[in-house]
């Protein structure tokens, strides 16, 4: 399957769009359906797609495993960090009002970073889980 030229070309064309779509879902979540979790899943799917076409060994060169593992942890830290920022700025834990002089703006900022955290962890975990399963299969799928 990996040597099929058509598939490779189509994948090359599609993957940027999937990535773009993920970003759209991420940042448009305030207005329409979507948000960090869905975006994270789509992001992971883009890479999984790549891995299915080019083999997960190649995929691991593009998105190396230590990076993925750090992403898992970083996402949670970003989220928890937003909460701590609220504490440091004099509010309660996860208080977004204090993140900006304008409380509503603070809410926006808080939600933005929180969603980034969720997307980071989710895509990291999904990818990592996929890699783990693929690797267990031994060699290439």
């Amino acid at each position, binding site marked *: 399957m990996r040597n099929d030229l058509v598939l490779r070309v189509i994948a090359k064309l599609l993957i940027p769009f999937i990535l773009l779509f993920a970003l759209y879902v991420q940042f448009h979540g305030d207005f329409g*359906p979507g948000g960090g*979790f869905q975006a994270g899943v789509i992001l992971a799917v883009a890479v999984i797609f790549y891995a299915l076409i080019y083999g997960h060994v190649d995929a691991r060169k593009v998105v190396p495993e230590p990076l993925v593992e750090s992403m898992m942890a970083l996402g949670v830290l970003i989220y928890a960090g937003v909460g701590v920022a609220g504490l440091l700025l004099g509010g309660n834990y996860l208080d977004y009002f204090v993140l900006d002089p304008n409380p509503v703006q603070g809410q926006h900022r808080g939600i933005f970073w929180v969603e980034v955290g969720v997307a980071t962890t*989710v895509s990291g*975990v999904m990818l990592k889980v996929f890699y783990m*399963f693929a690797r267990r299969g031994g060699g290439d799928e």
Partner: protein
Amino acid sequence: MTGLEKAMALGGHFTYFITIFLMIAGLFIVIARGNLIKKLVGLGIFQTSVYLLYIAPAKLVGGTAPILSDAFTVYSNPLPHVLILTAIVVGVATLALGLALVVRIREAYDSIEEDEILDLDAAAQPGVQEP
């Protein structure tokens, strides 16, 4: 109002009964089947049926999805949606972990049938225990 909405409104508790059927089926698969993967499929169905239990009552006929806009005044209840989003995520996390366990079990026992594995353990008593 779509046809489905009408059907649901007519049925009154109809959605609940569908939910309950799905739940019974899911739970049955989990308890009755010995195959470890099949059990997880059943567990998924069991959990999914609960989503309906939350989401169905949140619907208001004539309401729209809870995305504020000037064009609408009636919205369906967003809170259950939030809860179920969380529940779905938790569900898939459990599934990933369960499957990882199944893979490991398969490597250790060369089987994913619960009965076979229990037999293997019974046969291997007490020798394996002490390294």
